[in-house]
């Protein structure tokens, strides 16, 4: 059981024990630097260990800090450098929780791995009658985390348990309080776990790369202002552009790293009929017909079809910042996903 020290994984462990599993708790040490939220701090490890004592299970800490640097932090920094808006939680799931930890579990002789994600695993009969598994939305729609699990393949899904996917967050907190877990009232983790709220993204990136100023231009190429660091600009961003007393809302509609230019336009300038993506994967077979596509953790789903490496929107949609994870759904099942590229 991957235990972050939060309430979801604490209750997930309790539910597994109740279901008769023999459970060992594991907390991943991912980040050695400064942090004030999320999965990495010593106090979170302490919380996880206390929950494990309370539940009467073994608890271990695995140090994956090197891999976290390599697969999450460094790509996060270089993505910003390229003008992308990365999704580090997705990369952490892809490389740490569902690769490194899975392989570690194999080595140590565990047959299943569990996490506290709010999502479910559903199974359908495949063509050759072998079951095909999918991640599906958790039953608490407001807390659903299926989006960040789009990368799970059949081998991983067959060995994964998501014990809190069938209950609401409210019920999770009730259970935690019923069994007297000290994490019952712990707030949900927010934001990027390795970035402190004090310095934010600007300080974190500024310590690691040179931040470069860029011209702000309108869609006709006229210079209308400047931004101090192009690396911190996100496609679709509206605030912080210092455009003065502009009555109409204006958005970042393109970021050109080569030309050091940020293009600002109106909402209609953001709208596109297709969105290129890379690293497209399918949970089972590719789906040719209409699907629902979600492009951010708490964003809504939009109808589309997937053709080659493009999302063809059924209705024009705003461009998505490059580097964002894309989860493709059929109803509430995740059937695939990828990462957005810069739209032309």
């Amino acid at each position: 059981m991957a235990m972050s020290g939060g309430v979801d994984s604490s209750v997930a462990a309790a539910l597994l024990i109740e279901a008769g599993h023999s459970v060992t708790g594991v907390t991943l040490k991912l980040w050695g630097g400064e942090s004030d939220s999320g999965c990495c701090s010593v106090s979170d490890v302490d919380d996880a260990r206390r929950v494990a004592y309370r539940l009467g299970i073994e608890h271990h800490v695995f140090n994956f800090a090197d891999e976290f640097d390599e697969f999450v932090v460094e790509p996060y920094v270089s993505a910003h450098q390229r003008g992308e808006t990365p999704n580090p939680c997705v990369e952490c799931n892809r490389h740490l929780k569902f690769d490194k930890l899975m392989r570690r579990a194999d080595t140590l002789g565990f047959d299943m791995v569990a996490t506290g994600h709010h999502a479910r695993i559903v199974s359908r009969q495949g063509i050759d009658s072998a079951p095909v598994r999918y991640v599906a939305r958790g039953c608490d729609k407001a807390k659903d985390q299926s989006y960040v699990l789009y990368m799970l393949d059949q081998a991983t899904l067959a060995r994964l348990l998501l014990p809190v996917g069938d209950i609401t967050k409210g019920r999770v907190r009730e259970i935690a309080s019923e069994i007297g877990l000290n994490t019952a009232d712990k707030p949900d983790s927010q934001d990027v776990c390795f970035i402190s709220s004090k310095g934010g993204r600007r300080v974190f990136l500024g310590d690691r790369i040179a931040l470069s100023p860029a011209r702000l231009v309108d869609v006709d190429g006229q210079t209308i202002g400047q931004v101090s660091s192009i690396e911190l600009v996100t496609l679709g961003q509206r605030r912080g552009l210092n455009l003065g007393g502009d009555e109409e809302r204006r958005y970042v509609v393109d970021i050109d790293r080569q030309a050091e230019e940020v293009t600002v336009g109106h909402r209609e300038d953001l709208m596109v009929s297709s969105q290129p993506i890379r690293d497209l994967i399918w949970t089972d077979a590719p789906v040719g017909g209409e699907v629902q596509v979600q492009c951010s953790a708490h964003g809504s789903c939009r109808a589309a079809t997937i053709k080659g490496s493009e999302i063809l929107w059924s209705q024009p949609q705003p461009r998505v910042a490059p580097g964002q994870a894309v989860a493709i759904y059929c109803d509430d099942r995740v059937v695939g996903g990828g990462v957005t590229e810069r739209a032309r």
Partner: protein
Amino acid sequence: MARMANRVLDESRDTMAELLGAKPGQIIFTSGGTEADNLAITGVAQATGKTVICSAVEHHAVLEPTAAAGGRVIGVHPNGQLNLDQLSATLEELKGDVGLVSVMAANNETGIIQPIEQVVDIVKATAPDALIHTDAIQAVCWMDVAQLAADVDLISVSGHKFGAPKGVGVLVARDGAIFAPQALGGGQERDRRGGTQNVPGIGAMAAAAKAVGRERPAAVHRVRHLRDKLRDQILGSVADAYETGEGVAPDQRTAGMCHLCFQGVENESLLFLLEQAGVMASAASSCASGATDPSHVLAAMGVPRSLAAGSLRLSLGYTSTEADVDAAAEAVIAAVSKIRSRS
């Protein structure tokens, strides 16, 4: 009540003084090894305003106060022993500006023994005003600290490394070794360490010290033989396994430490499987979260990070038996083979 407590302190001070080759008035009771190290390093740095120097393989309890005081770090040879040429050169370079030289008696991870007598000779010749500190925390069970540190000014010792409960230690400070106290007020320990003494812990440490004084010579001989057997059994059965500190003379390792590295093995996996087999071991030093951090000691020795990731530290004690060693060797061999077959 107060008299009884004072009697425990007085008698314990005498016992510790005898074990460590010091006068009773030179024994300062502390909360453990870390406090003793900090008191020596930070205390001398503050009192003298001069540079403090330590080896790269010191415990963090020495490295961190040295770094905080803006001190210098001396490298080690690939065999883990101090680079004495570099020490001499650094002392020459700093001329009279050296307050303290701190070199541990034996390393806590590898058990490799440092040439304290040569360090003393070099410091006396090149920086005669500098004080010498040795962290002897790992040495008490296996070496005669009174003899090896006879010419050392400050000595740190921790009780739980030789049978006392956790939370008690000693700093030996010879007469004339001036340092700034870190806990002020209260007047305990002749104003050198304020704060109420841990009387039961100190009494227990003295009892353990007596036992060590009595049993050490025979135990060292017996445990060294067990350790060699353990190492030979493992290295004889496991490919791509190495004893750390190649080229170190057999008598330059503490008798109770068996430190090995396995290529292609992650030590967290190894420790997990060993624990399941009832063998409690460790890898490098543990960080605050309980995770295993990469070893700064192996890095200082030039052991590649990939090999250091497979380090294993098996510690033996006075109560270790042939059966323990056989079981440990069997468990290590099985665990390494399991890990290699599954990854």
